[in-house]
């Protein structure tokens, strides 16, 4: 088992290196750089820009160097000093900007994942064991709604309902007085008060997918001979179902944690833009449009790292719960 984990981690390192290169290239794709788009926006406001000044700044940020030198500097900074570069649009080091937002993103995604499962598994089991019952149809229909409605649209709907019927503005993750306040117990409570809205929206989407998976897998497993064996032992129906087929049917859950997480991150990015949450979404969007490459690149890279680590965790979990995997 330990060997398996170590081997997986060893594979992960080159993956991360390749991903960091890919993200850096993607960030460099837009024509021009931050300074040219910055200059353009200043010019649009009617200001006069000194070309020489731009050149000096370009030199300072190293934007005139070849791309591989920039990449090398960036990676070296991250690995040796934990320095993710400078955000050019916000004039602050990237590392001061990203961590709180990434942590909130992670909390949002992981909590949504867990809440989604917590609802999806029992409902999926019910749906499969009571196939074609009225509740099964209702559950199936709702799960299709969940798959069909993207989180950002659901966010709009929730905002609409909260606005029109409850007089609430549901945007944001904190009340105004806490946004800039240092972390305190009161701030955590305030966060929880706001967090449930995006969590329930994201969990609704996650539940829908999870429910379909549970139901389909369990329907397959219920016909397997070992279920009959379990019945023949004299176990109660509940015990038979939860100990045997459900247990086997849940394996794919663990194997999909990785990309489920990636999906959630995607959904959360959009949702946080709509609801203006203090997570990575809005800042990534701004960084991308302003060509603030280190900020955007760091976000993109960290989001990928989250997925890669999630996949690793899911593989380890799967090996832990399914003895058949451990063998190979």
């Amino acid at each position, binding site marked *: 088992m330990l060997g398996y984990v170590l081997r997986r981690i060893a594979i992960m390192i080159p993956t991360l290196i390749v991903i960091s290169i890919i993200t850096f290239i993607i960030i460099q794709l837009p024509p021009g750089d931050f300074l040219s788009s910055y200059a353009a926006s200043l010019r649009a406001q009617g200001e006069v820009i000194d070309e020489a000044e731009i050149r000096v700044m370009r030199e300072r940020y190293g934007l005139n160097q070849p791309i591989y030198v920039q990449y090398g500097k960036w990676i070296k900074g991250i690995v040796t000093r934990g320095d993710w570069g400078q955000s050019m649009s916000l004039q602050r080091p990237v590392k001061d900007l990203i961590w709180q937002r990434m942590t909130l993103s992670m909390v949002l995604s992981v909590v949504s994942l867990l809440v989604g499962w917590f609802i999806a598994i029992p409902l999926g089991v019910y749906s499969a064991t009571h196939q074609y019952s009225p509740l099964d149809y209702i559950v199936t229909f709702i799960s299709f709604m969940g798959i069909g409605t993207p989180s950002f649209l659901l966010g709009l709907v929730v905002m609409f309902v909260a606005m029109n019927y409850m007089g609430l503005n549901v945007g944001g993750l904190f009340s105004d007085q806490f946004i800039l306040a240092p972390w305190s117990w009161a701030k955590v409570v305030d966060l929880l008060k706001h967090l449930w809205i995006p969590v329930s929206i994201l969990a609704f989407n996650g539940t829908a997918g999870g429910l379909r998976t549970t139901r389909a897998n369990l329907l397959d497993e219920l016909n*397997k*001979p*070992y279920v*009959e*064996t*379990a*019945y*023949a*032992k*004299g*176990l*109660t*129906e509940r015990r038979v179902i939860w*100990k*045997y087929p459900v*247990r*086997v049917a849940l*394996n794919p859950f663990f194997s999909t944690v990785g990309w489920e997480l990636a999906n959630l991150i995607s959904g959360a990015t959009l949702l946080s833009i709509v609801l203006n949450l203090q997570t990575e979404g809005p800042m990534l969007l701004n960084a991308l449009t302003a060509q603030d490459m280190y900020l955007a690149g760091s976000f993109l890279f960290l989001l990928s790292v989250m997925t890669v680590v999630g996949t690793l965790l899911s593989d380890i979990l799967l090996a832990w*719960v*399914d*003895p*058949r995997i451990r*063998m190979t």
Partner: protein
Amino acid sequence: MNNSDLLLQMKDLKTYFFLDEGTVKAVDGADLEIKACSTLGVVGESGCGKSVAARSIMRIVAKGGRIVNGEIMFHQRLRDPETGSRSSNLVDVLDLAALNPHGEKIRSIRGAEISMVFQEPMTSLSPVHTIGNQIGEVVSLHQKLDSKQAREKAIDMLDRVGMPLPQRTIDRYPHELSGGMRQRAMIAMALSCHPSLLIADEPTTALDVTTEAQILTLMRQLQEELGMSIMFITHNLGVIAQMADRVAVMYLGKVVEDASVEDLFYKPLHPYTQALLQSIPRLGAKKDRNQRLASIRGSVPDPYNLPRGCPFHPRCARRLDICDKEEPPLVKVDTGHQVRCVLYK
């Protein structure tokens, strides 16, 4: 027949499956008797209802299936839970067919009084639980043992079924064992509570021939040790000859012939039984190159659309005019030899 050694009696059992496509009469009026400490062989082609009959006894008929008629009288005897030895004193006669299939009563019988070994040792064990977990579960459920005692009991049972290194095998997963080993584990699990009846549903079909012989020997040996009855379901007449005391031949949900194993092989009465016996390849028959192996003409009819009268008449070599009109009764030809055919009326 002496009532005192009767263990299980199935009378006019009908188990139907109600599906979208129609009703399948999987078991349609079957009568069976199993005596204490003996082996009843049940033979028939696939789809003749033998497995459904067995599952009806356990009350684990698959979704859509229901017992619509008949009774399954189970003669429960007092027994010592430690050794499993039974006195001849009758405790109770239960009609299994009348029990609630999800109820507590039938669950206390399943796995304890009647247990079952299935055809596919590969898929009949849970792939994600250890052997010990799956055996210990039965023991602790029915004998109220704690986990340590249950584990000891499981090791003991694995030892008795001839599992090498039982202390180690107990923590293995099914995929780490060979087919024969898995079937031994299945048998250990089925016998761990010393049932009075073991239903073996084609337990050796999926095994190779040498393993099959080992498992059959093991089952006979354990039958003697534990004093249980076996209902042995198979389509292999050779295995029947080796294992059974009495044989019931089933065709399309009915028992068409019921006889001692000697009578069945030497004096088969029903045309179906006769045809079955003729379709066994015989040693030496190859010399006569022109003689082809006899086969029963036609195939099992569409289960949604059974023939009228005797279900076998479309394929029968000795058909009479009334065969497609009248359902033949069960005729008692000899002591302990019954046949469902108008030829013997």
